[in-house]
């Protein structure tokens, strides 16, 4: 990522003390990123070490506590639940699918946001007025509510359908952000210069504006991913998720429906919650780290990077 900063202004970069001085090495951003990579590796490399078939019903003995509890079985280190599913295998399968839902939904939202936001900010006039009014209206709709109503009718079969439905509400945030960024960038010298040189609008957008919006776009994407995962988890916890593939929210739903809380089966409901909290915290750290990269004033007094 440091490449971006050095490329855009080689003179200053060469005068820097070292490349480690890059604003992209914000500690919050890097910490969050490393955690996400680790979680992702767990999900991607897991199938190599653990049999994922154990994630399905009746593949294992029921109600086994984790291995460190009395009665635990080393064959199921994190225990099993009441439908005979191995907890470790469920987590291995569920983590990548949850991250995928978030990434797909947020990317679609981002793409729509870039399109609408740049039209609104760049063209102005009545297109801007229409896009802004609709965006502001959609942003205030309680999205989870509408998503519940939709998924209650339309049974979700796979994670892609889930991601598409979530993308319905993933675009207003990026649209607002990109519009306001384009509005300020349009008045900047280098963009005016390009305009006067008769550079096509699309090229100005891609070569002059997008590189300057990069930290904002990235912050919006990480925020969007965690927002989509949050929405997906909420739907799954209510029992509206894809039923065939285990997902983190579905595990929570199964646990709640089988009253795992009252029965003290901590190993059933706690692992998916811990994984989700780790994921959300990591994306949250990345988002505020990126905010600080984009807006140096937020770095505050003394607490620095």
């Amino acid at each position: 990522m440091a490449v971006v900063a050095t490329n855009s202004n080689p003179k200053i970069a060469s005068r820097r003390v070292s490349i480690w001085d890059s604003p992209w090495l914000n500690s919050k951003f890097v910490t969050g990123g490393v955690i996400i990579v680790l979680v992702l590796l767990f999900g991607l490399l897991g199938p190599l070490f653990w049999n994922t078939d154990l994630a399905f019903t009746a593949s294992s003995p029921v109600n086994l506590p984790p291995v460190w509890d009395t009665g635990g079985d080393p064959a199921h280190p994190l225990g099993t639940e009441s439908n005979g599913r191995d907890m470790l295998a469920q987590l291995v399968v569920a983590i990548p699918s949850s991250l995928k839902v978030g990434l797909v939904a947020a990317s679609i939202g981002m793409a729509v946001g870039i399109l609408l936001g740049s039209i609104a900010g760049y063209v102005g006039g009545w297109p801007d007025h229409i896009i802004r009014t609709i965006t502001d209206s959609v942003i205030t709709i309680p999205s989870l509510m509408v998503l519940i109503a939709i998924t209650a009718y339309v049974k979700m079969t796979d994670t892609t359908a889930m991601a598409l439905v979530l993308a319905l509400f993933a675009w207003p945030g990026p649209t607002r952000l990109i519009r306001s960024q384009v509005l300020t960038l349009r008045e900047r010298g280098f963009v005016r210069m390009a305009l006067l040189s008769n550079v096509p609008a699309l090229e100005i957008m891609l070569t002059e504006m997008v590189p300057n919006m990069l930290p904002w776009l990235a912050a919006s994407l990480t925020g969007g991913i965690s927002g989509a995962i949050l929405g997906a988890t909420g739907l799954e916890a209510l029992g509206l998720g894809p039923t065939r593939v285990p997902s983190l929210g579905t595990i929570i739903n199964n646990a709640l429906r089988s009253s795992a809380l009252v029965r003290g089966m901590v190993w059933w409901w706690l692992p998916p919650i811990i994984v989700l909290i780790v994921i959300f915290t990591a994306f949250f750290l990345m988002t505020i780290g990126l905010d600080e990269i984009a807006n140096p004033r937020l770095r505050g007094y003394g607490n620095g990077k």
Partner: protein
Amino acid sequence: MGGLTRGYFIQRLLMFFLTIWIGVSLTFAIPRLSGSDPTTAMLLTMMNARGYVENADKIIAAYKESFGLNDPIGIQYIRYLWNVIHFDYGFSFAKFPAAAWSLVTPALPWTLGLLTVASVLSFIFGVTVGSLMGWRKTPRWLNNILPVSLTFTSIPYFMFGILLISIVAFKLHWLPATGGYSRDVNPGWNAPFIKDVLAHAIMPLISIVITSMGGWALGMRGLMIGVNNEDYFLLAQAKGLSPARVFFRYGIRNAILPALTAFALGIGSLIGGSILVEYIFAYPGTGYTLYRAIQEQDYTVIQTITNLIIIITATGVLILDLLYPLIDPRITYKKSVAS
């Protein structure tokens, strides 16, 4: 200049109806675009439950007739919008003779009470913490403690609720785990009942407030840092005004305005999150009613609650929007310049 101008009022009113129209139309359009059919789906579950249903195709046809599903889609849509406007949502699928509306109304006060208290508390705490974090004169010890309150920000409300139930209710037995009130108290305006309701509301309230205040705090911190460098702020300090006066009258008073806009925009997601909190705590509000409707595949009740929540949210945003020019006189002026 300033105050509530007519143009601003009309614009906000337009947005109010647009929000409701888009939200309500999405819940109408998407299921129909996907080609799934609630009556067939319900018959299938009936068949699953009872093994065999006599004359299933006739029942489907009768249902379709009585719910008007045979009419052209345009007519259905117009009738649907008309029903939304005058709060007629038909009969409950699962508890047939009962109107969907009558199943939802008893839940409304619970949700509205919980949500209002939770969102106001979370905003007040968040703004206070955030302003202190962004203020240059905040004592160092305080500045080291405050970020701790942001630890829970990235935890979804309902997950925090699950953790609370398992620790506070099942391990420590301090508070009741679920429900709105105990069975042994008499609902009404008597002291034991009110005490009981409050005891049941504490945990849902805490799970929303603790996890949502961090968002406001972070935004407010950024705004306050901006105000710190403004000339009027420096002048107020140079005049030797008391730090408290500078903080409240010059700092918060100016920095809070964009935060209020963010508050209006955030109501929707707050309500969404609280649905899950109610479900976790089996709190007798709309969220829990919704969960039961999902279980029973009671589509009209789901639709009723969805439309109702959309309308309530839009109304809340509209009220905030209309109050806003009274707090910030610049806003109507700015709007007219921008458009």
